[in-house]
């Protein structure tokens, strides 16, 4: 945990949501990087391993499943992934891709902050 970066990578195709999450987490003191699909996410990871990845599942270009497969094959162990999804079986999806946790959409900001706080220390 100590060696891990305190930054958070948020991967979601909804630009408004991306902006919201970045705004909230930055205002909580985290460094936040955003990507609008899995492909960009992988590129961001290759530039530098974040402390946590918040991952949407349904995305164009490269979806959450493909991202997770590729991510796990390249980086083992990497930073934990928390699934951020509108799907009602978020928990199962998280298990499927070996994610550490999940947050269902829509979410309370307090809940978001609490979950993130579990994995990453503020920097």
């Amino acid at each position, binding site marked *: 945990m100590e060696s891990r970066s305190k930054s958070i990578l948020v991967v979601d195709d909804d630009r*408004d*949501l991306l902006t919201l999450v970045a705004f*909230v987490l930055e205002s909580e003191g985290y460094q936040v990087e955003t990507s609008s699909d899995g492909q960009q996410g992988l590129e961001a990871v290759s530039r530098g391993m974040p402390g946590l990845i918040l991952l949407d599942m349904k995305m164009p270009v490269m979806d959450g499943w493909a991202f997770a497969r590729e991510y796990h094959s390249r980086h083992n162990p990497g930073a934990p992934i928390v699934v951020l999804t*509108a799907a009602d079986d978020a928990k199962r999806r998280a298990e499927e891709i070996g994610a550490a946790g999940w947050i269902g959409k*829509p979410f*309370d*900001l307090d809940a978001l902050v609490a979950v993130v706080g579990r994995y990453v220390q503020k920097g």
Partner: protein
Amino acid sequence: MSFGGHGRLQFLEAALASAADGVAIVDAEGRLVFVNDAGRRLVGTALPLGSLSQGLEAQLSVRHVDGRPMAPYQTPLAKALEGERLVDFPALLALPQGQEVHFSTCASPVRDEQGCIIGAIFVFRDVTNQRREERALREKEELSRRRTEQERDRLLKVLRETNERLVVANLRTKGLLHEIDAQRRLFQSVIENAPVGIALLRGPRYVLELVNPAYQAFAPGKLMLGKPYAKVWPETAAKTLPILDCVRRTGEPFHSIDLHRTIHRFPGGPLEDAYFTMAILPFHVPGDRDEGLLIVSIETTEQVLARGKIEVLAEEAQRRAAELQSVLDNMADGVFVCDREGRITLSNEAGARMLGLDCPDVPRHSLPDLPELFPMRHPDGSPFTYDEQPLVRALRGEDVLLEDGKIHNPQTKLDSYLRTTATPIRDDRGSIVGAVAATRDVTELAELDQLKDAFISVAAHELKTPVAVMKGYAQALLRTEVDLGAQRRGMLDAIDRGADRIDRIVRELLDISRLQLGHLELAIESIDLPAMVVQVVDRIALTAPEHRLRVVSTEPAVVKGDRDRLEQVLVNLLDNAIRYSPTEREIEVGVVVRDREAIVSVRDHGVAIPREKQGRIFQRFYRAHTGTPHDYGGMGVGLYISREIVSRHLGRMWFESEKGRGSCFYFSLPLRGIRGGK
């Protein structure tokens, strides 16, 4: 020795020499003094004169006729020398050549003047042939006698046997006479009691000489016996007399089945239609020159008329059946009928098509064949057990309404969706004699339904992200330290709450589509039910500060179930209670344990559910209060989802509701719990 004059002696010698019989003379001592030619020839040997007769006899071996040897003193000559006269004394002479000669001998003494025996004369004749003939004759006589006796015995035997037979025959004759008498009486009884009419007609006018009661019964009011046929049956004579004539003339019997006649049963009575099955036979009375006719007839009027009626009815029934079959066959719904034993007795073409059979093959099957023939499944994919089959349930007396199922077609690899209604068929007394099921292919509807569910699912997902954005920004603004003022904060709170409501609607829509598709999964865990109830009530109480929520009983109960889903049920019931209750009345929540079940109840004192709407409140999208002053919105799916969740937990949900007293909703959960796992 002296014989008187010499001439006389010569004469005698000449006479003796020419005699056919053998003649020998011996002197007193037995010496042969004379033997004639015949004697020599007969003996067949030289007989030297002067030889002793005894020696001669010994040489010649004189025997008794039975073959025994004759003692010397017994010989005819010896006896003659003793003074005895032998006439026709039989003797047997065994000649040296081995042959035996039968002789008839005569011997007499020859005396002198003083009567002294001076010799003996022996005359012998060959009687062999004679003896043989005699014997043959005797044997012949014997044979004849024996034959005669045999014949006599045979005749006697025949006589005796004949006599015995006569005795037996006599007895039998008596028996036969008795039997004939019995048979005559039996015959009479048969004729009298026969269920067929019998009449004997005699003479050219066909006089009815014998009429049995059954024949008389054809026309009870008529005098028949002794009357000519034409007088008895004037109404039918024109038709029948030619037949009688024909039978009489040709000797050919006449037969007819259901012959139609119009007759008077009584003289002067009405003419009635009557039908007879009859035979008219020539009848010869032994010892009578005049032939008769025998009529044997049975009236079939009732049968013919009944048959006519049956035919009309059968035609009608056939027409009806054809109509029905045509209606059935033109129906889009599959129709199946089974009898009480579960044999399928009828199906229409649509039904046969559903089973993948030809219509005539369907009635060879019975209900136990159905799971294989027709592997119908519930909408969630589990197979119908035998007891769940609509026809089986209908046979048990249940009215099965709109039971949904699906079946996979291996050829098209597509599922067909079926909706079945089945009811028992009862007889006049109300006993179940079978069942009928109508199955409608609702695949198109189901596909539309699925399309709708898929649409809901996609739409709901798509809604979630914008809702998350709305909710998130509203909260983000509320989190800023800038002083927004109470009014602006209120607006942002409203946005947040609106997002929550949209989210709830979205979740309900998703639940419905999941339930419909059978995708609702439960994460089973042990739950302390009263603790959970208290927790949920406390949480809801916070959101409804104007209502008074109270937990009235908390009997300990641990159940197995999906915590989130069970909380969802309770939240639904509480939301409803809050929505339809005036604020000043309490809402009471309880947990009780009854018979291995935990029962959760939510009682309100609010607007009751109108009685006429109570039957439908668990239907999805049904809103009992639509269009009333109590329409507080909502999708009308909460109770539907709640009951489905409870039934997935093997529990039940029900309610009581009465105007003026409010409603109480219950749901039960088995205490043993349901098996965990996914």
